[in-house]
């Protein structure tokens, strides 16, 4: 039985200089901040440690900083100790050129999650087996809907 802090230290040791910040947050979250070029290697090492599947891939738009934050939430099925924590692997990408190497080769479970993120947030995953529209109609020609500059209507409380 490993505590959250022990696991955090273990990950820090394993990743070394690849990750620039490792945080832990009770009760079950470890946040690893990574530079985009190191992402693939970090993912490889995490997979090797036993984190075998991706739960969530999220892209969040930060229009003021002109960045898009990409988060992979990763955990394990096989190792009970690791299954109790979720790892958030965070990368910040430039909004003008949101490109990153796809992690499908390491975690095949990310395939549709990445494809959806491409569809709705507009992040381009290089080496992805099938990077096409998934949820939106194939003739969608506006900006990705989850960007903050994509406005939807709202109504007040008055008729």
């Amino acid at each position, binding site marked *: 039985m490993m505590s959250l802090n022990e696991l955090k230290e273990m990950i820090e040791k394993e990743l070394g200089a690849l990750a620039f910040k490792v945080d832990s947050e009770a009760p079950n979250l470890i946040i690893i901040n990574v530079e985009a070029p190191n992402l693939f290697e970090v993912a490889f090492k995490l997979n090797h440690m036993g984190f075998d599947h991706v739960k969530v891939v999220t892209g969040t738009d930060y229009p003021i900083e002109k960045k898009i934050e990409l988060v992979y939430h990763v955990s394990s099925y096989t190792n009970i100790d690791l299954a109790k924590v979720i790892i958030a692997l965070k990368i910040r990408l430039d909004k003008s050129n949101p490109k990153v190497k796809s992690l499908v080769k390491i975690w095949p479970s990310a395939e549709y999650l990445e494809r959806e993120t491409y569809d709705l947030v507009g992040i381009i995953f290089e080496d992805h087996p099938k990077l096409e529209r998934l949820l939106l109609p194939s003739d969608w020609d506006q900006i990705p809907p989850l960007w903050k500059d994509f406005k939807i209507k709202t*109504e007040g*409380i*008055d*008729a």
Partner: protein
Amino acid sequence: MIPKPSTIKRHLEAIITGLKYIFVKNRLTLRYPEMVQLLSENYRGMIKYYMDRCISCTLCARICPADAIKMYTVGENKLPGINYMRCIFCGFCVDICPKEALEFTNIHDLAYYTREEQIQKPIEFSKGPPKPIFKKEPMKIVVKLDKSRGLKYERT
């Protein structure tokens, strides 16, 4: 190919179980227009509005997740009206009302021919939801649970 004895046994078991239910009295159809289920007091059906209790606090319009409740100006007051085209019957407006000016009714079985009649302005809203029309007075029933039959209907 000759089937195994166990396969034949399982076939027979399935058929016998099926036959059993021809004779077991286990009907549970609610013959709707003739029978109407009386729902419990806390059922979240269409909403009744008491204009005299309302203090125009706008809480109901602000919590409505579907923007179905809007505030209309009636004379000097702002009073809520509801749009059943959007209402999702979550009941948040009733639960947040501090003066109990909104109330659940157990009317739930309405359909409309046009879109326009589904918008209720404050005056209509305070008259309560329209009563469903039945050609014949329906039999009111309550649902009881039963160990051997599952659902059982009893006349009230």
